[in-house]
């Protein structure tokens, strides 16, 4: 075998570098391309929302910049249709559902993680098996139940069936169990009550997980569509998802797309802001076991 000279080695290295940088460039181009596909709809919604109705309709070939930006559409979105109502409803629904869910979840997770009682293991097994039940299957009866309880078009009807979440109970239980049991025993010796231990020790220690669960539930509530659509048919209790369908079908009188886009921007904004602040935590939480839907 012939010895490789220094020049040969350099040539090989150079070739590898060139092919490496070519594939790097291709990679970056493709990644940017997908980035554009992701971002373009957002750009388009903001752009359209600041075009005036007349200029939007006069552009046969849509312009990629707004020559005379206007905020008129945002005024229209809040005055012509009930956007502020939908928005407020969603805020109330999201906050109440998330808060009740959190209390129920923390109590159940604590019972499974630290308390001893008869039938604990079998109950936990039943809870786990409930994770496999698709919502589509139980929605039918829930709809009938809520109708029979005369809770259609009420917040109670919206919230009650959306509260329980087996997955979050499971996730939090696993986290609670990782806190050394000695802490619990020490607290018991000191005469601390269970509830006090839970509030003063367990919750603060598991704050990151709890915040992750809160954020994920807020996202889920803000975007929920199917259940709210079933139990509300009066505008007074529409959430944003139903509101946007209402706006699409009966809003603004004529096809006022710029105003519609203004409404879409307003609806999307809270979660986008939440995402910009908490993106690390959200992504981490979702990769730990969240799924969509």
């Amino acid at each position, binding site marked *: 075998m012939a010895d490789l000279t220094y020049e040969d080695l350099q040539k090989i290295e150079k070739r590898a570098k060139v092919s490496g940088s070519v594939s790097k460039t291709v990679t970056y181009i493709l990644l940017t391309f997908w980035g554009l596909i992701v971002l373009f*709809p957002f750009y388009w919604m903001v752009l359209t929302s600041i075009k005036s109705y007349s200029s939007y309709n006069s552009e046969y070939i849509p312009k990629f910049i707004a020559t005379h930006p206007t905020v008129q559409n945002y005024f229209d979105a809040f005055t012509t249709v009930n956007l502020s109502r939908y928005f407020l409803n969603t805020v109330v629904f999201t906050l109440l559902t998330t808060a009740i869910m959190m209390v129920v979840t923390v109590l159940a997770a604590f019972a499974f993680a630290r308390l001893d009682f008869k039938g604990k293991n079998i109950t936990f097994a039943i809870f786990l098996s409930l994770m496999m039940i698709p919502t589509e299957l139980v929605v039918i009866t829930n709809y009938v139940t809520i109708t029979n309880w005369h809770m259609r078009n009420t917040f109670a009807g919206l919230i009650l069936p959306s509260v329980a979440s087996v997955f979050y109970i499971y996730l939090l239980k696993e986290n609670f169990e990782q806190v050394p049991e000695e802490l619990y025993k020490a607290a018991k010796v000191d005469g601390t009550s269970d509830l006090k231990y839970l509030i003063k020790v367990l919750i603060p220690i598991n704050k990151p997980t709890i915040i992750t669960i809160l954020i994920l539930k807020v996202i889920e509530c803000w975007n929920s569509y199917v259940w709210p659509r079933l139990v509300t048919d009066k505008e007074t209790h529409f959430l944003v998802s139903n509101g946007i369908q209402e706006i*699409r079908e009966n809003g603004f009188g004529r096809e006022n797309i710029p105003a519609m886009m203004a409404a*879409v921007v307003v609806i999307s904004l809270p979660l986008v802001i939440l995402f910009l602040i908490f993106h690390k935590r959200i992504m981490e939480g979702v990769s730990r076991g969240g799924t969509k839907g």
Partner: protein
Amino acid sequence: MSKLKSLKGWLYLLPAILFLGFFMVYPLIDVVMYSFEEGYNFASQSHFGYGLYNFKYVLHDPYFLQAVKNTFIIVIITVPLSTGIALLISLGLNSIKPLKELFQTVYFLPYVTNTLAVGLVFMILFKKTAYSEGLVNLLLNSLGMSSVDFIDGPYWAKIFVMCFYTIWVVMPFKILILTSALAGVKKDYYNAARVDGTSKFRIFYKITLPMISPMIFYLVITGFIGAFKAYSDEVAIFGTNLNAAGMNTIVGYVYDMLYGNSGGYPSYASAASLILFAIVFTITVINLLISKKNVQY
């Protein structure tokens, strides 16, 4: 174990048990009952007897058959495509350093957006109206193709938009899972292979793919389940009257039966949802069997 202590445990569990009992366990039993009750009347809450009539009715309903067809098309197109593209993108992400985090964050954005709201933007981009062809059609025209109405036009065009939007919506989750799976593959394997002069393709096929195969199968299984339950994305693009658009899905059929224009037949809705559950269950079991054979843990 004292009785009092036992009681305390149950007390802490009580809220969860009440909520789950009322809104999950009871409905589960009830839905099976409904599906066998013939001639159920919502107003009087009475029925004639028990039998398979509801299932027969649903299986012969052309709207249901259309919904099944649409749903299967969504599943067959979007699951492999989205998983494949997500794998490519994740491989790309994993091979770069600068800007990696920015790309990752941007790619995740659709996960947190309201599908109903963003669907409207897609509708506008694809829609052909009296005063404008729509942006996508203009793009097609500039490439020398004739324009198509993607929202009210031919079936294949509607399917295209629907699948495109579905993929756009499910990508964030898949990219996130695959990038973290890829980041978990030990660098030693790659270095060893590189020293041996193994080609890039071979490294991917022999090292990377087997190492992340559990996650790929996880995504395929959850992808199947999610795609079979497609509904909101379709509403977002075609509006609430999916039957009129010919774009209904099985879940959409269930909800339409329950409430909506044809409204008020919980028995038919129950039968349809049980059929859906049977399909999803079968496919998931098949998936698990295949994955047991092929996945290396």
